[in-house]
């Protein structure tokens, strides 16, 4: 089976990878699926991956790419039949203004912000992870932050008023 160091890698890093995937997709069960899939693929290619400088970066790139591609996967599984009469629980994360706003960003913008502000990736590293130019990373980051700034001040003020009232 896999060499001992792959087992150590999985044991030691899977939690951090789960956290990263959770921030990307905002859903802990989807995060588990993404990490399981990425680690299995890494295990298949471990002899090659472990020779690179950054095996964890390889796994993160795989998680990110599978996440960005997932929308296409969901669209293809089409049900033809009576839709359910009741909706199911929305997977919105718990109350937190910025977290809510992050969840509403387009996937690419969300991914860029997570890579930048959670992993402290440079623009070049983000560009390599997402397969785009640094120019695209700059403009995506800028648009995402502008959107958050536009929507945050109202929420921040509301939070202040509530605290003051209590």
């Amino acid at each position, binding site marked *: *089976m*896999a060499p001992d160091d792959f*087992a150590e890698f*999985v*044991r030691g890093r*899977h*939690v951090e990878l*789960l*956290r990263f995937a*959770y*921030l990307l997709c905002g859903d*802990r*069960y*989807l*995060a*588990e*699926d993404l990490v*399981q*899939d990425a*680690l*299995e*693929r890494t*295990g*298949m290619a471990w002899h090659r991956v472990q020779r690179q400088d950054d095996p964890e970066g390889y796994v993160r790139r795989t998680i990110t*790419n*599978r996440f960005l*591609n997932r929308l*296409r*996967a969901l*669209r*293809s*599984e*089409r*049900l*033809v*039949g*009576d839709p*359910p*009469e*009741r909706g*199911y*629980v929305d*997977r919105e*994360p718990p109350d*937190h203004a*910025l*977290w809510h706003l*992050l969840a509403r960003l387009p996937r690419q913008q969300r991914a860029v*912000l*997570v890579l930048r*502000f*959670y992993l402290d990736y440079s623009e070049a590293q983000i560009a*390599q992870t997402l*397969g*785009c130019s640094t120019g695209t990373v700059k403009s995506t980051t800028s648009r995402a*932050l502008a959107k*958050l*700034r536009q929507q*945050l001040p109202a929420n921040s003020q509301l939070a202040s008023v509530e605290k003051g009232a209590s």
Partner: protein
Amino acid sequence: MTVEQQLRETLQGKTQAVTGWADPVTQIERGVRRRKRRRLAVQAVAAVTVLVTVLTVGLIQRRPAETPTNIDATVDEAVGVPHILRRSPRPDRAACPPERIMEVEWIVQSAPWGMSTGFGARLFTDQRCTLSGRPQLFGVDVATGQRVEIPFVPNVAPMDSGRVRQFPATIDGGELARVEIHGNSACPTGQSPQSYRDLSLLIGDRQLDLPDQRSLTAVCGADVSEWFVEPPMEYASLDAYLLAPKTLRRGEDFSYTVQIANRFPRKFNIQDCPVYLLGLGAQGQTWRRLSCDISSIDAHRTVRFRMTGHVPADAAVGPAKLTWIGVLPNGEVIVADMATSGYPVSITQ
């Protein structure tokens, strides 16, 4: 505090609630072993295919490393239905609370290779959970008017081997847990068949009606499967689009193009040309293998396969969707025009 600072704080704070798996190494190693077994099986089939080709033709063409943009693909018959890579089975979770099951639906799921039918249940929950075992089937005995349990009879009808199933059904909220029900019409000697209406399933302590007041007529019991899921396919990181005439005539050939795009900055290694299925609506045709001259698609490049299709003489006249699905040697799939579930065409006489 700036938005950047808030972002850092929020992202760091959100991850504190994320906990690890109980036994991550076993979980991942199991999945890796499964993928390796599949890969060996695919390679064995490919090796047999090559051997047959060598014996028949006496020549193997080497595939060049570089990828041309336009390819006139020649088509051979497929060796068989390809193996499609699907999501790995999930570890079991706590049992799904019956009160969270919304209702049982009749599912008709179309795919280019056929239809999947059966019953499915969805959950109203944000907790992943597991539905396992076999639900009990109840119905109103038409003769007596009493609601009774319908006797379970195993192995009445073999499950459709073309479908992939994972038992038990570990599902997220909104996902389908599936069950199949077949009435047993082969009654033992001396036993009279019964008819039942208003069927329902007992899940835990909850009776859930089957939709549309379903019934079983003249049966001696029924086979109810255990709960299962049909895992989603694994998709290759490629985009695919069809270009075809908008109007197709029954019984005639037509030319079309499949564009496959690699949007990423790395070469995508496809190893060998895909097996594919061209379909019209839910009417799948035959799996075929593309004989092309590529083994990879370069970064940010698009490959166009120019191909020929055929409209069955008995195809339904009117609007239809042309579908194309390719399966790579590693089992990953490429589905053309995923966003629109196919390419719209009109079929004429």
